């Protein structure tokens, strides 16, 4: 604030009354969407045995996909990452995704091995 050669990014985040109405509309639409997805998840968890007997793997993958969809909306809309410049989006998401994919891969691979070893020797 004291130096006038530095751009004060926080100041130009302001918006007008009219823009605010549009933004609030988006917020409530996303809220509705997240609530519906959560309700679907809970209903699926409670009734999948009657609805899709024996399809546990399919139900499980549905949960994981719905979770990722929910996470995308939270990060992009609620945390405003979707409104930021593309380079900061990449800076936040790509290293994290890269590291996580590797971690998931290695955890599945190794736990498979440990599981088989225990089955064999215990």
């Amino acid at each position, binding site marked *: 604030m004291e130096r006038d050669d530095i751009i004060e990014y926080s100041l130009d985040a302001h918006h007008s009354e009219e823009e605010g109405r549009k933004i609030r509309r988006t917020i409530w639409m996303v*809220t509705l969407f997240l609530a519906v997805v959560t309700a679907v998840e809970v209903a699926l968890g409670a009734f999948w045995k009657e609805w899709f007997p024996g399809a546990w793997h399919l139900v499980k993958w549905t949960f994981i996909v719905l979770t990722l969809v929910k996470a995308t909306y*939270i*990060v992009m809309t609620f945390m405003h990452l979707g409104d930021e410049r593309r380079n900061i989006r990449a800076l936040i998401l790509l290293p994290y995704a890269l590291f996580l994919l590797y971690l998931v891969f290695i955890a599945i691979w190794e736990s498979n091995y440990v599981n088989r070893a225990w089955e064999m020797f215990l």
Partner: protein
Amino acid sequence: MSGEATKAISGDVLWGGGRSPFSISYGKMMMWFFLVSDALTFSGLLIAYGFVRHAYTGAWPIGEEVFRAFPGLHGDYPLLYVALMTAILIFSSVTMVLAVEAGHRMDKRGVIKWLFFTVAGGLLFVGSQAWEWSHFIHGSGGYITSPDGAKYWVHNETHDTHDPAHAPGFHLVKAVPGHYLIGEEGAHHIEGEAAMTLWNDRLEYIDGANMTRNEYGPPQYANFFFFITGFHGFHVFSGVVINFIVLLMVMKGVFHRRGHYEMVEKAGLYWHFVDLVWVFVFTFFYLV
């Protein structure tokens, strides 16, 4: 959002120095960096849980069987309470983003209103989690193992776990092998003399949960429950404290004098992150 982030600026200018190439303030960028590292911590915990669960050779407890109580109600409500907690946290996230929006319009009263609801939602969530922990630790009666290796669930009318055999309505229900918390289909209640004999010959009686053993499944199950939901609950608690401090500062007019409400935005990022983590905990610990 408007302003610098949406302007078309050439790469030469963006990266040419004297400005943030990301068109973002230092504080907000550092909050994002912190969130990435915190996200890695939570991912590590959840992936460790997945590792242990996948490597485990026996039966692993199922969320909808373990978490099926609702405060003040009798009977089975699988995951309903956890779903309510999730809804509370998502709605407090919504009030937070509305506070941020009000801040962008320099609407001090709006920020105060929405931030107040956010703090209230956070407190409600922490309180719900305290109930959940208490219920998890006390358990629902526990089980005994007999010398032939069978497992029997212990029931009585007063939910007495100190001396269950002498409480009114004491009976046992044979458990399904390789399954936690479920009685055998159509298994009749073992009562009276027969129940007393089994009780007296028991090898061990396990009820509730602690760090070394629990009635739900392998010890790691309770350990991960305590650590993951505990670590998340600690984040919620610190988030409530941060939001409360920011709320006091808003009420004193600190940010209005400063000319922008970016502090609300930064506290908001942290708060949304806490909500985001819960979405994953809900899926990977309770649902899947």
